[in-house]
């Protein structure tokens, strides 16, 4: 199967170089061929398993607890302004 690599790269927000696009096209379809093995297994009426702990609805009281200070939260960013993360504009004005 052939994958539309450019479309998927856009969804994944991944910048790719031209030579990578061609290589990925080949490698991804190789992997897809491998995983298509699963089609030979009958899974009719089988529930999907998303996790294996058997735990359900794990919740705690909604009480504020100590967390990172503003300074700590910002300690690894390259771009801040007035104690906030500074990012590129999201909406066109």
């Amino acid at each position: 199967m052939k994958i539309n690599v450019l479309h998927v790269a856009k969804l994944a927000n991944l910048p790719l170089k031209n030579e990578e696009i061609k290589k990925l096209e080949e490698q991804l379809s190789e992997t897809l061929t491998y995983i298509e093995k699963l089609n030979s297994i009958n899974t009719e009426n089988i529930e999907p398993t998303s996790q294996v702990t058997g735990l359900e609805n794990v919740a705690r009281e909604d009480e504020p607890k100590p967390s990172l200070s503003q300074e700590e939260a910002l300690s690894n960013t390259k771009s801040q302004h007035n104690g906030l993360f500074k990012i590129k504009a999201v909406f066109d004005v």
Partner: protein
Amino acid sequence: MNLNQLTIKEAKEGLKNKKFSSVDLTQDCLKRIKEIEPKLNAFVTITEKEALSQAKKADDMIANGDDLPLLGIPISIKDNFCTLGVKTTASSKVLENFIPPYNATVVEKLNNAGAVTLGKTNMDAWAHGSSTETSDFGSTKNPWNLKRLPGGSSGGAAASVSSDEVLAGIGSETAGSIRQPASWCGAVGLKPTYGRVSRYGVIAMASSLDSPGPITKTVEDSALILNVLAGQDDKDATTSPRKTEDHTKDLSKSIKGLRIGISEDYFKGIYREITEDVQNALKVLEKQGAIIKNIKLFDPQYAIAVYTILQRAEVSSNLARYDGIRYGNDRSYFGEEAKRRIMLGTYTLSAGYYDAYYKKAQQVRTLIVKDFNQAFKDVDVVIAPTSPSTALFAGSSEDNPMFGELADVLVEPSSIAGLPGINITCGFSKEDLPIGMQIIGPQLAESLILNVAYKYEQETQFYKQRPKL
């Protein structure tokens, strides 16, 4: 004998009896690190100053008569565990300057247990691989043969332990990343039940599978560390609420009457020497009263496909957070393997393909879980080779998008089912490379698999053979 060659148990005795101090022990480890690290590259970051100050503190506490489970014991930590104030890269250039403002729960627990941390170990970038060759900081070498791979992704951790740079290493496994490098490097590697050890502060790979665990020289040391790491954590909602236990308690219990299952499909296409050594190991256990039963487990080949889909999908979702805004570099810094995984995962989760891939894989996951549940009605543990091969040559993983999956074929089924498994050395190849077997148990049966591994180890003592590096 230098102090860095000791096991944790031996070092604890020496510290207690004041034969040497934690500073002596730590300095012997540092000496070894300085001597072999240029050849081995097991570490991304070495924290000499911090380690010596932790060791001094441990010595003060020992002088005060304090006793903690790992007091004064030098260890290494895989570089995907967040360490407060110490660079944590997951061996990726995306995080080359990332200094976490908090500790992973595992790190917090090790600190509270008095451990001395010598540094952060190398791994496949983001834990994507089984060779350490995808590390952005150069691959680690195998201490038994520097032309060979250590396995991965916890390859630095396994190499640091088997080369006696540290007494133990903390690794993490999604499917194979503890057991496989332990097998290739000749160490004891324990992958606990999913949810037994907190994932909080571990740089996520596949969140429904990730399990932190110890890599050690002996089974008893493994149990000692698991005692420290295990337990519910309110910062990780998937941790088991089941009470923790002392995993050293039943180590020497008799295994008379223990039912060991072996499944033919786990011996297909593997090196002959490995089959022979595992069969010899079964004989050793049989002599101690264990009963070997042939069972038929789900063909592990299908587990590869299930794992590949689930893992790539969860990777694409987990790595979406790396946008270079709050921390780290931007997405152009991802290496080839991470890009490949993000792309496949994004594709299988994208509109129109979800049912065909992700849901299908989750359904087969159900079948694999049920299959193990059924098997554990007839047997107490399952034994199989850990890896189809001994350590491969450097370069083997290059340009092979399925390298890791094929190397991990025998550990993926149990990971998918969230089961605990332990690797232990059961012999050496003609080329003098370690051969490992794994013991798999039902969920939360860590004490049982440790017991079986311990009985085997006491009889054979392969761990006493060390690489001549």
